């Protein structure tokens, strides 16, 4: 038996194709427009500025008094700026601490003498229900060694009790003093921040401290013996 064809069959196919083409056209137009706005316009903006300054080398200009004066002035400024800039870099021993990767570098006479892992601030914010809060991060910038201590003790601050759910004792209470937790040496950076040793050596290279810089025993000894009071510590 032959299948009967209705005249509508062709009409629907044509409609589908026509609608498909219409949408394809609309989508292409939108993509082209976006492409033009996002990429074309910024590229076109560069065209008016594309002419580079053509440098010249006129001999007669070089003999001009004003020219010579300007060149000498520039040379003098560069010399003075270079001197000023080089003065910032001291020949003394200094330490560089990378808080992102938890690495330290020790320099003597501008030469790297030791490098290794350290631990820096954990970026934890400790909050209490009463609204007190502490952020445990190592400060960045230029610091100086304020003091050096052998066999340091740790005076536990308030957050150390809060963190463990303990009641905060009075300022001079015996429970605030702990010996042996900071290693053999401590170097103060001011504002309560120290470079010290640690019992948790497996955490070296990780951001786990409350803001201080922790080193292993050998590195700490080298740093203690290399840096003096006033030596610079650069933390970034």
């Amino acid at each position, binding site marked *: 038996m032959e299948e009967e064809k209705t005249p509508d069959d062709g009409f629907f196919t044509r409609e589908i194709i026509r609608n498909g083409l219409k949408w394809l056209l609309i989508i292409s137009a939108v993509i082209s*427009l976006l492409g033009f*706005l*996002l990429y074309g*316009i*910024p590229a*076109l*903006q*560069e065209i*008016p*500025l594309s*002419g*580079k*300054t*053509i*440098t*010249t*080398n006129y001999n007669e*200009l*070089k003999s001009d008094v*004003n*020219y010579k004066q*300007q*060149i000498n002035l*520039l*040379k003098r400024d*560069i010399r003075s*700026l*270079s001197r000023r*800039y*080089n*003065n*910032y*870099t001291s020949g003394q021993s200094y330490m*560089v601490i990378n808080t*992102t*990767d938890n690495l330290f570098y020790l320099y003597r006479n501008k030469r790297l003498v030791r490098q290794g892992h350290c631990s820096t601030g*954990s*970026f*934890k*914010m*400790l*909050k*209490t*229900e009463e609204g007190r809060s502490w*952020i445990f*991060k190592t400060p*960045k*910038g*230029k610091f100086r060694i304020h003091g050096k201590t052998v066999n340091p003790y740790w005076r536990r601050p308030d957050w150390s009790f*809060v*963190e*463990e*759910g*303990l009641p905060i004792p009075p300022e001079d209470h015996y429970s605030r003093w702990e010996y042996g937790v900071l290693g053999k040496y401590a170097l103060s950076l001011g504002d309560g921040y120290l470079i010290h040793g640690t019992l948790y050596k497996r*955490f070296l*290279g*990780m951001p*786990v401290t409350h803001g201080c810089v922790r080193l292993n025993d050998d590195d700490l000894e080298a740093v203690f013996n290399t840096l003096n009071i006033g030596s*610079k510590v650069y933390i*970034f």
Partner: protein
Amino acid sequence: METEIVYVSSDRTAKILAWTVVGILFLVYYTLMSVYAPLKKMELLKHEYGYRQGGNNPLDERIFTDSAYLNLLHEKSFLQSRAAMAATDSVYLSINLSDSTINLEISGVTVHKAQIGRISISNILGGGNNYIVLSMLSDPLIINKNFSSIRKEPLMIKMAPRDTSEYVPDIIPDTADYEPVNFIMEMENGIRLHIYQEDRLKLGDGLCRSLFDIYHRFRYTAKTFLRVITFRLPDYQPYIKLRIPRSDAKIIYRALPDKGQIAVYS
């Protein structure tokens, strides 16, 4: 009685044609305004940093194209900018496009050095030997806004336990955490510094970079669009786009303060 509007084919075509013409005219207007913006910016820079002749001893203008003079000016501009930043105790960035290095410095000491893989720069800055641009770059660029795929300070909030029974020791941080690093720093003078991750360490790094770039292109285009439809000239923002290794990008982004300073040797 309800009236029915019946469009005949020619009406519809005329309408489409009219809208197309309006659209094209708007695009032309938009393009002209956008293309004029950098010229206006250059004019403003000329007004701010251009050399003003003194009355007694006028300078021969040819000096501003003299190669020896411009080379010295280049050096002075970069040094001056770095010296100004070194006077602070803060971390700053110095970018040397001529030798493709990017350094983090504190008080004149280079604390971290990275190699730039790819550089793309606006013509206004890339001209390099331009007296006006060199004068502008003799002051440190100050960061105004940061846009990044990573957080500047990955702060984690921890509520203090009420007593010892609630106390849980800290867990060891997951150092294997991975996020692609792409960021844009907008300077106070309008310059944009894009720093994108160069290496493709994980599947999707390239896609993340492209999406980050497209998202910010949308943002700038929306800003331009808003200005153009309110009949104002768009702000032209010269750019410096750099690609550096992910680890360096992360260090640089985290080390620079929110309002950090940058020196550029173009």
